[in-house]
């Protein structure tokens, strides 16, 4: 049984050159967190370790940030509209308050969706947690040894400058393809996945998986 198996655990630094060069991450706000400290996920097994946690690159929030900025400025121009001709000042003020609260709600839901939509690479699995909005959650995962093909793609001027892109992972499982979209250092992530895949094969050959 896959989930009952016991193996002689090696630390990720023992077999991954990529992770050997990374320090454990304590700052949980970042989009690229190698060896994160004090981060767990709900379906994590007791002997499973999170090796890398990824979020979409912060630059992907730029459009939402600009929208929020202009939304904050919009009430300054409300006196120019036809509302101020027939509504008392307290009603106009109520409209402005509502607008600012709506903007705050939008900012909050954008932040929460970004913060909790994560890609997790553990020593056993890859997990894609997607909060499409505040109301829709989609979690897909695949075991490392089910990975068949890994590729990374960086496209666009900004993506090349800031080094972010998409990692495509083909698996043999039910979920045929997993995508880590707009993540920082996609080539590094693909290289790490290759190292994990090699380690899984090594474990099988050396009989460390029982």
């Amino acid at each position, binding site marked *: 049984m896959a989930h009952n198996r016991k193996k002689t655990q090696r630390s990720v630094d023992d077999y991954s050159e990529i992770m050997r060069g990374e320090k454990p991450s304590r700052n949980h706000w970042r989009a690229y967190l190698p060896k994160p400290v004090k981060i*767990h*996920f709900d379906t994590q097994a007791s002997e499973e370790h999170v090796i890398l946690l990824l979020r979409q690159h912060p630059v992907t929030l730029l459009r939402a940030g600009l929208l929020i900025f202009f939304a904050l400025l919009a009430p300054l121009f409300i006196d120019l509209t036809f509302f101020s001709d027939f509504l008392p000042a307290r009603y106009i003020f109520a409209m402005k308050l509502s607008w600012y609260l709506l903007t705050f709600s939008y900012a909050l839901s954008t932040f929460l969706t970004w*913060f909790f939509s994560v890609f997790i690479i553990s020593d056993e699995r890859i997990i894609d947690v997607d909060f499409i909005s505040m109301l829709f959650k989609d979690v897909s995962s695949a075991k490392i040894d089910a990975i068949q093909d890994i590729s990374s793609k960086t496209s666009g001027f900004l993506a090349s400058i800031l080094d972010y892109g998409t990692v495509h992972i083909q698996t043999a499982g039910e979920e045929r393809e997993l995508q880590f979209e707009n993540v920082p250092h996609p080539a590094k992530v693909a290289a790490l996945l290759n190292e994990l895949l090699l380690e899984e094969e090594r474990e099988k050959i050396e009989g460390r998986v029982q």
Partner: protein
Amino acid sequence: MNFELTDASLNTALLSFIKILFLVGGLLYFAFAFIVIRQIKVMRKTLITALEPEIAVLGWIHLGLTIFLFLYFLLVL
């Protein structure tokens, strides 16, 4: 009884109607803020980080602001 449709009474009726719209909107928004609190709980269970208290506080601030807004609609308009 004699009802006279003056400009003032029309104006009052219109403002009362707008106030009701604000109150209904405020109530719906209040319900949404509760859903946000619930969803934050689901999110915090999915990914457990050291930032849980800060994120929970954001949800409660959001709920507090919607309550304040509803009270403003109810008492000031």
